[in-house]
């Protein structure tokens, strides 16, 4: 998606050239006023003072970032130590998002490959099958996942009935449940870019390698993978980035022990913490992480584009 938008075709100037600024202006105004300016305001808010029992005071303060980084003890008068709890929340989010990306890759790559190698007519149908669930409301998908995985839910009932397990697998409220939820949320983002690159891949290359007595898996690893790598990278970024700030899957499937960034931020605004400056600071840190990921991605694709 990122590459789609960033593509600059430089098409011939047409009749609309004199009007171009006017045509782009509404988009500039709407996004600039209602998204760019607000994000700058979040940055400002992250440096404000939290009012006792919620709300903000317009007074400069580093308290939000201080709370994020340093532990000054229960009474706030001990010498500062590194505060690991929030770093852990971020670390956990990165880990969960990474695991979800891996899960998407392990299941999504073979799927994308399989679909891309079907005859053209059937391909569209397969692709349709894989993308349909994505268009179902995310909340409903997450709820359905929870319903299926519950201790007394259909999956456990089935496993108990068949006799595979003696007691319900406690999947809900574990990291695995969160990863499955994230997988369910963003799988098509992995499948589609990989599909696009495999579809364009010229299988004559593989044949040539096979002619030289490379076995199937060597062909896959040495010939195909390097060529479709951009698709894999794109897919991974597209899954990883939204997973990092996801709210629904960790909130509904994760329980208290799988607290992720999304819930941390939500708690500051909708929960009972009511600490807007801290929530703003956490948002800014999340945003910087995402920008770093996107920057590396842009550099990578930029390099490939030039090569």
């Amino acid at each position, binding site marked *: 998606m990122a590459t789609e938008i960033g593509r600059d075709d430089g098409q011939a100037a047409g009749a609309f050239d004199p009007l171009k600024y006017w045509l782009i202006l509404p988009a500039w105004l709407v996004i600039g006023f209602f998204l760019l300016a607000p994000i700058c305001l979040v940055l400002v808010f992250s440096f404000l003072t939290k009012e006792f029992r919620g709300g903000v005071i317009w007074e400069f303060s580093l308290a939000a970032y201080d709370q994020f980084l340093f532990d000054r003890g229960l009474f*706030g008068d001990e010498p500062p130590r590194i505060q690991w709890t929030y770093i852990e929340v971020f670390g956990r989010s990165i880990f969960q998002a990474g695991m979800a990306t891996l899960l998407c890759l392990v299941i999504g790559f073979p799927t994308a490959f399989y679909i891309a190698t079907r005859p053209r007519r059937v391909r569209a149908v397969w692709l349709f099958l894989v993308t349909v669930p994505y268009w179902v409301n995310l909340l409903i998908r997450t709820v359905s996942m929870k319903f299926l995985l519950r201790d007394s839910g259909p999956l456990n009932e089935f496993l108990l009935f068949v006799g595979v397990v003696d007691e319900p697998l406690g999947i809900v409220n574990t990291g695995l449940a969160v990863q499955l939820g994230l997988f369910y949320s963003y799988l098509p983002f992995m499948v589609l870019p990989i599909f696009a690159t495999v579809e364009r891949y010229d299988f004559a290359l593989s044949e040539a390698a096979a002619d030289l007595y490379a076995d199937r898996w060597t062909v896959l690893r040495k010939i195909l993978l390097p060529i479709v790598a951009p698709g894999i990278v794109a897919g991974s970024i597209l899954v990883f980035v939204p997973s990092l700030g996801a709210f629904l899957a960790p909130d509904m499937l994760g329980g*208290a022990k799988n607290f992720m960034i999304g819930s941390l931020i939500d708690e500051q605004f909708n929960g*009972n913490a009511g600490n807007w400056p801290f929530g703003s600071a956490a948002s800014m840190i999340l945003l910087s992480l995402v920008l770093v990921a996107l920057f590396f991605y842009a550099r990578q694709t930029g390099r490939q584009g030039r090569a």
Partner: protein
Amino acid sequence: MKRVLCTFVLVLFATASAAQEKISIYHWFEYIPQELLDKFSEETGIEVVMDTYDSNETLLSTLKGGKLGSYDVAVPGDYMVKILISEGMLDEIMPGELANFGNIQPQWVDVDFDPGRKHSIPYQWGTTNFSVNRDAYTGDIRTTAILFDPPEVLRGKINVLDSRGELLALASLHLGIPQCTSDREQLQALDDLVQGAKQHWASFNSAGAKEVLVSGEAWVGMIWNGFAAKARAEGANIEYSYPREGMIAWMDNVVLLKDAPNRASGIKFLDFLLEPENSAAVTNYARYSSGIAGVEALLDEELLSQPEAVPPADAPSGTFVEVCDPEVDKVYDQIWTRLKQ
């Protein structure tokens, strides 16, 4: 085609801003029956919209976060009424404004969180303890150790309320320390206690407190007494505990919020809830106890004898959650923040 589209959009805008006499209620979840709200609309012609929250602290932070001025009435618990008054977030109810003011049970008129009932009217009262699944655990449950130092089998199957006031008050009872103590050692002990117990807790869930017990996702659940009764009625084999260390008592109150957009509707709603018949409808639905006189005859019979409402003779009396002074409250805030992450 274009004209049809334009008309459609216009109609959308028009209906979106259609005006009617309204009331905007901010209420605890699963507490007031929809039928009662419908009845209010029918009697007064006022359109009811309601949002819900699941802890006193959420109510406070939402209102402070900019929603004050968009709701007319809310239903804070006792200590939260005191805080909202001190924050200047409640409107005053003028003497004589409520026709049914006399229906308040005498013992609930002069309460220490709102002397003389200038800002609130009583709604329902009850207790906060925990229920234990009797299929999973048959031992002694009349101790707060079930929550804070649970026996092996119950570990990891415990849900606690996502409510700072009640949880820390119950923890204080467990330790036998006064609430809002400013003693550093006691505060440290409180922090150590909840931090140590946290590893045994599966979730902080108030809205789902009933559901996790019914579905068996949790075997122990910190819960309000009426909600526990509902869970039992839905088939959970659970017993509501009356710990010897003490228990939390509370009273929810209906208040008129400052800058209410529809103050007159709010007053009508308060008067409506002061009628025994309507208060009894809430009690029958939520299974707590009403603070209005004359409801007894209108209550479901089983309500009077349900174990969640009738403590054993030797149960200690309930303790109300206290409002700490700012210095201590900041430490409480710190304990809670550390606990939640």
